[in-house]
């Protein structure tokens, strides 16, 4: 931070407040990126025995099983509203028959992974940051190290692995529930025939649609756990610091999810 202010003063001499602020911010950003890279490096180097299977399973349940209601509710209402809205739009140029296709493609490629990602970021990212942050400020992380246990191996790695593994499963379930939400509205409200709606859905769906969504889900799982652990691990100064860490974890994970959603879409689009 010292260097940041020093360079920022330089900036002030040459270009005034604006440049000074830009300089300080970009240095701060670079520093954060550097810390994050180091943190990720420590996670990767923790991929070695001893394995803490108990912690891993606990996280699988925490992240996967307990997120099911939230993710399921999000998916079903999204599928339902999607069917209604696209009907409104498509009816204007008599393209109602495209509704099954629009619903399934939007859900599997975009809405399933992104909305599940954001919901899990809110639920799990905050909890991870708060738990690890509390362990930091109450010296439990110090105690782990004192007992010859690598906190990255014991705390961080199980969370990251569990999130990366379980997010695609969650999203796959969300895909199915979301499509069923659309199906429900289409058949009950919009007068579609049940058999042909499902047939249309399956005929139109490509492997790539689902696959790209699941790749996104795994990436989002990594982002959520990384942000939760990173901000928790760095938290300082009691309850207030832990609260701030939880907020940072959710906000940064959400923004990164939206950013990487675009980037991954771009990669699949280019192929």
């Amino acid at each position, binding site marked *: 931070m010292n260097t940041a202010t020093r360079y920022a003063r330089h900036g002030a001499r040459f270009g005034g407040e604006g440049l000074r602020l830009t300089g300080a911010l970009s240095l701060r950003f670079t520093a954060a990126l550097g810390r994050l890279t180091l943190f990720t490096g420590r996670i990767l180097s923790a991929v070695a025995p001893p394995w803490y299977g108990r912690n891993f399973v606990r996280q699988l349940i925490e992240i996967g099983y307990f997120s099911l209601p939230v993710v399921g509710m999000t998916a079903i209402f999204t599928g339902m509203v999607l069917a209604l809205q696209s009907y409104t739009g498509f009816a204007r140029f008599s393209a109602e028959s495209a509704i099954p296709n629009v619903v399934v493609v939007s859900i599997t490629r975009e809405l399933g992974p992104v909305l599940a990602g954001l919901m899990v970021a809110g639920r799990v990212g905050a909890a991870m940051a708060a738990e690890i942050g509390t*362990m930091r400020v*109450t*010296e*439990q992380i110090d105690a782990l*190290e*004192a*007992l010859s246990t690598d906190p990255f191996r014991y705390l961080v790695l199980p969370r990251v692995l569990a999130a990366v593994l379980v997010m695609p499963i969650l999203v796959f379930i969300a895909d199915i529930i979301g499509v069923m939400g659309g199906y429900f509205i289409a058949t009950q409200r919009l007068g579609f025939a049940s058999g042909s709606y499902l047939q249309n859905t399956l005929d139109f769906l490509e492997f790539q649609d689902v696959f790209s969504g699941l790749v996104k889900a795994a990436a989002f799982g990594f982002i959520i756990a990384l942000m939760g652990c990173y901000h928790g691990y760095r938290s300082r100064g009691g309850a207030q610091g832990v609260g701030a860490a939880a907020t940072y974890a959710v906000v940064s994970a959400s923004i990164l999810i939206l950013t990487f959603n675009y980037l991954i879409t771009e990669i699949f689009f280019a192929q």
Partner: protein
Amino acid sequence: MTDATDNAPSAPQISAEGLFLSFGKKEVLKNFSLNIGRGESVVILGRSGCGKSVFLKCLLGLLRPDDGKLFWQNRDLLKERGAPRELRQRIGMLFQSSALFDSLTVWENVAFGLLATKRMNRAEAYDVAIERLAEVELPPETALLSPAELSGGMKKRVGLARAVATRPEILLFDEPTSGLDPIMTRIIDDLILGSVKSLGATAITVTHDMQSAARIADRVALLHGGSICWQGGVDALAAPEDAGNPSLLQFVRGESRGPLALSAEKE
């Protein structure tokens, strides 16, 4: 200070030479030097906030001094890679805040080191944990409680049981008896004494309790202004006027005026 090795009967097990450590502008350790022999029980005294806990954390490698030397059996802890980890495996530490893992039960806390480093299975570790809990007068029923269900003094005792669980060579106790009643204090003192006298451990204890210090210490060191300003045999606590050190006299008598008060006001 470096020639202290020559005075000691055997080479010290742990030796700090001219440690410096600061947090931002705040200098906590300033030219801190202390030797601790094998099987010795040293009590570190000092005013609140003077850096006692910080020194213990330096030994554990949780904090890294900015400058100075730290040796363990003539191995340089600040230079030699791997030495801090080896040392850690031989240290049992009681944190001032107990620092129990609140996602684990009491017995899992106590058995943590046994499961992590001694490769015991859970059933064996459970039995040992129950034994260690009995040493700090906690009944087996407490084993399945979670730390949130314990009183402050019980937490401290669980922390103590966890610190001694693996029978480490070196024991660091950060205020082991704060928050305990006089009877319990006596029991804990005896536990510390027992670890040193019958199991041959080296103990470094931070305490504010003079009676307890007098009971468990072989040697006492007074930390002030970032370094040890006085050290000597435990007898000095009983007759501080004979030690000829005004700081010690003030500290033991608990007087508000004296050399220790002065620099504390400067802060």
